[in-house]
Every structure is written in C-alpha cells, then in structure tokens.
C-alpha cells in the first residue's frame, strides 16, 4: 500500500531536480530545492510506514525545520548581494 506513494514521491523529486538544473533564474532553483526538501520529508514518513516500525518520524520533523530555515537563509544571503544582476542571469 505504501509502494505507490513512495515511487510517485521519487518521481516528483526527480522532476524537482530537473527544474533545479534547468531553472533559468536563481529563484527557480531555490523553489525547486524547497520542493525537493518537502518531498523528502514526505518520503521519509512513507518509507517509515513501509518498514513497519515508525522510527524515523523525528528525522522528518527536523528535516522540515532545517529545510525551511535554509530557504530563508539562502534568500537572505542573495538579497544583500548584487540585486539586479542575479535576476537577469539566464
């Protein structure tokens, strides 16, 4: 029962990575990495239930926290560097 969501989540993570590589602007890449992070949280939860004993949910919680903080950190970092140069680079 958990195989189908796990496989679909893997496909979605692959698609998010493709968007990260293809993304023209910087913010597409940050968006793709953020989506990849949240899907990892879901994947950990689904794999946890697949393996029977639920031991890894704490890791999923911590991963959701770290993912959010890293996105805000990256945005704050690029906010102060050269403003317009980054938006136009293709």
């Amino acid at each position: 029962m958990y195989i189908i969501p796990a496989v679909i989540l893997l496909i979605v993570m692959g698609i998010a990575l493709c968007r990260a590589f293809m993304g023209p602007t910087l913010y597409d890449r940050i968006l793709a990495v953020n989506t990849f992070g949240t899907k990892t949280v879901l994947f950990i939860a689904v794999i946890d239930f697949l393996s029977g004993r639920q031991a890894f949910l704490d890791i999923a919680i911590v991963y959701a926290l770290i993912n959010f903080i890293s996105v805000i950190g990256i945005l704050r970092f690029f906010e102060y560097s050269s403003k317009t140069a980054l938006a136009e680079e293709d």
Partner: protein
Amino acid sequence: MELLLDIVSWILLISGSFFTLTGALGLFRFPDFFTRTHAAGVTDTAGAGLILTGLMLQAGWGLVLAKLLLILLFSLLASTTACHAMAKAALKSGLKPQTVNDNSNSEEETSSKP
C-alpha cells in the same frame, strides 16, 4: 472497522500522490517563475496534507499520531511562508511576472526575461 481505515487511508494516499504528481508536472512545465510558485504550493499543501492524513489513519492513537500532526502542521506553515518569501525576494530583485501584454509586444523590444 480496520478495513474501513485501510480503504480510506489508501484513497487519501493515492489522491495525495496524484496532487503531488500534478503539482510537480506544473513545476516542470509552467513558463514563468511566479506561476511555478503556484505549482510548488499545490504540491506542498495539498499533496503533503493528503498523504500525511492518510498515514495518520494508519498510525492509530499514540505518539506516532502526534509526530505526524506536528509534521503536517509545520510543513503547512513553513512551505507557505517560504513560498511567500521567495516571491517577495524575486519581485524585489527585479524579476517581473510575465503578464499578457508582455507577450503581445515582446517581439519589438526585449521584455522581462522568463
């Protein structure tokens, strides 16, 4: 009762992964950054919500249910705030959303980059 829980959680899991897949497809094919934030938002809220509620039904009462609730609550709060912060940062750094009139007169002059 057990069979009912299994069926309902199976339906929730499948619909959650369906929403995640369509959101990811949108993330892949949408033309502009701001439309892609919508697609990413769909996967974060609808997909995560349905999949986690499907898992919650399987977990039964206990610590696991509390952890899953925590994950669901926090991933809903975090992903929307992150999407908003990203859109604001992108807009402030000069990335223009692609509006309709950009398409019509984009042949003459180079309008905003996608």
